[in-house]
């Protein structure tokens, strides 16, 4: 398989081969980071860092687990570290949507422009509320919920990635859903009262 040969070459220090691996998995890694952290700049940072860590740890990768699962684990751990270190995820809703669209602080680097009014309106509504509610969850609950609901990974794989029992995954998903529902219903009530 091409992946295996790239993996072997990357393990021997071939950076081009590693670049191909990055190309193959970048979307999923970036998406996971984005969904966990909730903003692009942090997701970009975490995705790159995860790949760098993966490259450094390639020699230790014994191939027992699936490479993607292993890479995912690194991504999740890097994202968790980022969240714990400076509470990036918790401050998601305070940063505003404009910043969330930036990568490296320079939106033009990506061909991005300021969000359109339509986007802003969209964001300011339900999406913002949901993102805020997700940001209010604890790091572990948020990660588990995102992996289960958004990434749609099976519980078994989530258990493998997070290195926890499957039962704990199920509990965390249910608990996160419960808290999310509670938070969203509270917000709805508050919004209705304001109106």
């Amino acid at each position, binding site marked *: 398989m091409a992946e295996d040969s790239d993996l072997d070459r990357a393990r021997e220090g071939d950076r081009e081969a590693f670049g191909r691996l990055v190309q193959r998995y970048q979307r999923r890694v970036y998406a996971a980071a984005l969904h966990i952290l909730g903003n692009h700049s942090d997701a970009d940072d975490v995705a790159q860092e995860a790949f*760098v860590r993966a490259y450094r740890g390639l020699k230790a990768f014994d191939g027992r687990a699936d490479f993607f699962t292993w890479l995912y684990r690194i991504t999740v751990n890097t994202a968790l570290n980022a969240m714990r270190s400076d509470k990036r995820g918790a401050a998601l809703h305070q940063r505003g949507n404009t910043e*969330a669209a930036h990568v490296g602080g320079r939106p033009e680097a990506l061909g991005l422009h300021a969000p359109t009014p339509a986007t802003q309106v969209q964001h300011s509504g339900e999406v913002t509320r949901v993102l805020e509610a997700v940001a209010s969850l604890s790091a572990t609950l948020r990660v588990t919920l995102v992996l289960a*609901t958004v990434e749609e990974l099976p519980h078994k794989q989530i258990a493998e990635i997070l290195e926890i029992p499957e039962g704990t995954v199920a509990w965390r998903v249910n608990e996160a859903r419960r808290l999310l529902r509670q938070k969203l219903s509270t917000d709805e009530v508050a919004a209705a009262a304001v109106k």
Partner: protein
Amino acid sequence: MSDDVDEQLRRAMKVLDDQVPSGYFEGLPQRTLARLEDSTIMQTSSETNRSTPPAPVSTMNQKERDEDSGLHDIRSLASSTKARLSSRRSTSQPVASEDDILASSSAGWKAVALPEPAKMVSLPELASLPSRSEVEAADRAARAQLKAELKAEKKIAVATATVADEAPSASMVDAPSIGSRIAAKKSGKGAMIALVGVGLAAAAGAAIYFATASKDKTETVAAASRPLPKAPELTSTTKELPPPPAQVAPPAPEVPAVAAAVPAAAAEPAVEETKPAAKSDRKEPKEKVHKVEIRDTVNGGASAKPDKPVTPPKEEVKAGGGESEPSFDDLLKEAGVSETKATAKPKLDKKSLSGADIKAGMSSVAGKAQGCFAGTQGTAAVKLTVAPSGQVQKVTVTGVFANTPVGACVEKAVKSATFPPWDGGPQSFAYSYLLAE
């Protein structure tokens, strides 16, 4: 309900995903590799002695510039600054003066390098020095004084030596004081040291004499109180034993007499002879054992033929036991202990409760539990522990009916449930009943 939340979450995340432009992923591998390069450079630059300036921030950075990502500008700036600092630190020669170096060194080193000012060690002026004749006269006077002192001390030493010869015991006892006096006077050292040495030797000799004399005394006393030796063969075993009354009675210390008595003693019944041995060796309670030992010792070797065949004591005991009495195992078998053990605890095929067993057991009391409904609809969650016998050990009602009369009713109902017994430990599980009309 959960689907609704999931759907909302997916929609929100999709909005986030949509904001990522397509061009972003084209540059991500290159940026990742550049980052990898940067980190590698940082690692190598920190690992090496920074003797050479690190490689220029590589061609990858040029590519980064083309990509025009702000992060990489900052990174390249940071790495180039680091490189500049490290190269300056390693390549620049020290331009500081020695004073600066000394000033920056530790206080201890400074103290070693810089002694006190020369005033303290300078010589006095020539005018204030005494003339040669004055110095010689002073020297002569000092010598004469020293000689006079030596003469006086010699006289005292001779006097003390005579005193010591007249009373050697006193000198032996008082040796340390003499020694201290000698040290204080510092005269006639050789004679006095010899004297003290002789005194100490005499004291040591006296001490050794007394010690050996007292030892001899104790040895003779011990020898007098020791039992008489019987025969050369027996010495090893019977030396410490008190002699039999018949043989000790004649107070004959001569060895031949004792030796003559030994065969007679050997001819006597062995039990009598071994009594003392049995007294001394309390670990061996049986007489038969002693018989064997004594015969071996006395007659010595293969020529000795005991009346009965000699067997090791343990075997003898076992054999005796085997002949006359049944073994403990046989007794147990006769009593049927092992059989009862086997029959007392029959092994069960079932090692644990299966789901079907649990369902069956809990369903059997479902009617009772649901009969507890008292107007409030809800689920009564029950946690219970079942003993291997199949009886319910412990029941706890949790949830909305916890600590309520309905909960107590459900608890009572569940306690009456029975399960098939199994072989193993108690088993705990949760179950719930829907209480409704």
